[in-house]
């Protein structure tokens, strides 16, 4: 017990700063009323798992998405935003539709990673749609293979109408 406390005291807070203020973000028709809280559902649509691990990394103590009011939820019914990875593998397309349908309106879709945007290296494979946009209406794109956690945080904060400094 004491050793745990001591360790934590020595370490201090690890979470890095990413934003300075709640400045409404103007461009685009995206909502800016998500200032304080955003509920996300993750959807793997045939990714290589790289993007998904980077998304998982958002939860570690260095990024800690929760301190931005961002949370990953267990059900699409609770989600505002669907973060999709992967090029849209054929055998998952039905499940992807069902997940999207299960979300309450208003709802948005974010394509995370190059292969979610246009199929990336998997362009032309027989069981991939070549981008999640072919399956669901995409509102935001975050390029990278995989995008770094910093890029994802930046994109999420901008989506919420907040400004990030990194």
């Amino acid at each position, binding site marked *: 017990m004491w050793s745990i406390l001591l360790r934590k005291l020595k370490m201090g807070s690890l979470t890095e700063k990413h934003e300075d203020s709640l400045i409404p973000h103007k461009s685009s028709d995206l909502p800016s009323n998500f200032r304080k809280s955003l509920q996300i559902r993750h959807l793997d649509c*045939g990714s290589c798992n*790289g993007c998904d691990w980077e998304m*998982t990394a958002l939860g570690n103590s260095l990024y800690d998405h929760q301190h931005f009011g961002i949370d990953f939820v267990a059900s699409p019914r609770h989600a505002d935003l669907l973060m999709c990875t992967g090029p849209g*593998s054929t*055998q998952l397309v039905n499940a992807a539709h069902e997940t999207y349908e299960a979300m309450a309106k208003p709802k948005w879709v974010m394509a995370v990673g190059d292969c979610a945007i246009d199929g990336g290296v998997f362009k032309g494979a*027989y069981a991939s749609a070549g981008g999640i946009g072919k399956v669901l209406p995409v509102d935001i794109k975050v390029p990278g293979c995989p995008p770094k956690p910093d890029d994802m945080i930046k994109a999420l904060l901008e989506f919420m109408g907040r400004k990030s400094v990194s």
Partner: protein
Amino acid sequence: MLGLRDYLQIYTGIEIIKWDNQEGIVAMDSQDLPDILAYCLEMKPRPIWLTHVVNDERQLGNDFCLYLILHFPDKDFTLTLVAKGIKDEFPSLSLILPALNWSEREAQDLFGLRAVGHPDPRTLVLHPGWPKNFHPLRKDYKTGKEYKSFKRGPLVFPEMHGEGIFQVPVGPIHAGIIEPGHFRFYVIGEPVLHLEAQLFYTHKGIEKLLEGKSLEEGLLIIERVCGVCAVSHGLAYCEAIEKLANIELPRQVLLWRTILAELERVYNHIGDIGNMCAGVGFALGNANGSQSKENLQRLNLEFFGHRFLRGMVVPGGIKSVPGPKDSQEILNRLMELANDFEDWIPLLLEHDGFRQRAVTTGVLKTESAIDLGVTGPAARASGVAYDWRELHSHLLYPELMVKSVVEHNGDVWARLMVRVKETRESFRFLETLLRKGMQEAGRSSYIMNTFSNKLIPWQGAWGCVESPRGTDVIWLMLDDKGKIYRCRIRSASYANWPAVPLTVPGNIVPDFPLINKSFELCYSCCDR
């Protein structure tokens, strides 16, 4: 191995294509394959299955061919059994070597061949709902728009009847940031009676996509078969190419490749240990694991240009090598992280609650592990002392004197302990290797551009690397233009997935996430 060679010669129609101290390639009639395989499996110590490849060689006048690769651990000898002239069926080997179950079903799906005598008639890789006669890996199939005509059909699961037996379907989309797969639990009250796993939701058709690609394009794809085992897959692929070109690599290349492979192991093992804590809701362990993993990935990014170490290993070399100053810095940081690891790992190992959840949970029996050809930490936790780094002399592993870390209980705790001990070992290896790297500093990059004219076409070659999840095997055949003709990717996850459902019966449903995380298998490189 000479006894084996003599034995093989009693079969008429056997053709010994190659036989030396390390490797044998033997062609035979497909009807003789079951007997020969059964004979090989009787040998002590029992050989291990590396990969099973079906290849459409009708253009080469061979009909379909089947390549089965076995490794005899005591002699470090690999034997490739080649069955040529398969027209539309081949004898199933699954009852002799259950590890081949999935490979044979996959060959049925993707090539439209029939595995005669296979006990499970269901499709595997292609879910019900594809057009009839859709067999994409046949050479006469040209990639078209079939994905548009896919209509999801009903999945087939076994029936189970009795008072109080219920089915609990879970997935393919799960609650959390994880990959998709469908699990069907048959429960009676809380305990699980039986589990069926339906995977291959992320199947994209990578093996077909690779065909006709140049080696460089191929590497980009291979590194993205699995997000977190990019180095292992890339290395296995490069080893196969280098075998076909018959080139020797400079020592520095081997050294830095070994460093990369061990860095990959460390960041994965530490992340996986953290994830096992997440499987029981033990936030403190998870926080420490994910934090260390993040620091390791940042180190990867800073010194090797990618958080998942992609793009470093290239056919014939290595893209860039850090100088002595950077090496020292890497070493310092790694040692810091190793100390930190020793600092937080007792939090887990001495936590009674965590221990109670992990001990005796999800037991994989030794016999099952052997029969199913389980590999990596999962096998070693069940008493199978098989570590490719120890048993095959490649990279700089012989100098490091790797010893397989073995545990015997086969439960979640044993798999955890294997990872903990291997992490310590890997830190030690990294220290040794980095010191060597600093002493023997050479050029800052090694890329050989002159081997493309040496590549032998129409010949199979395998590359094999111990990834954090087990042995990854890539089998490659090139055409006469130096393009990929066939590439078979057998990842560690592909070998291990069939074992996971066996470990669940007798446990309760809430233990499944923990058991699953203790194997920590990837869906993507299994589904491809």
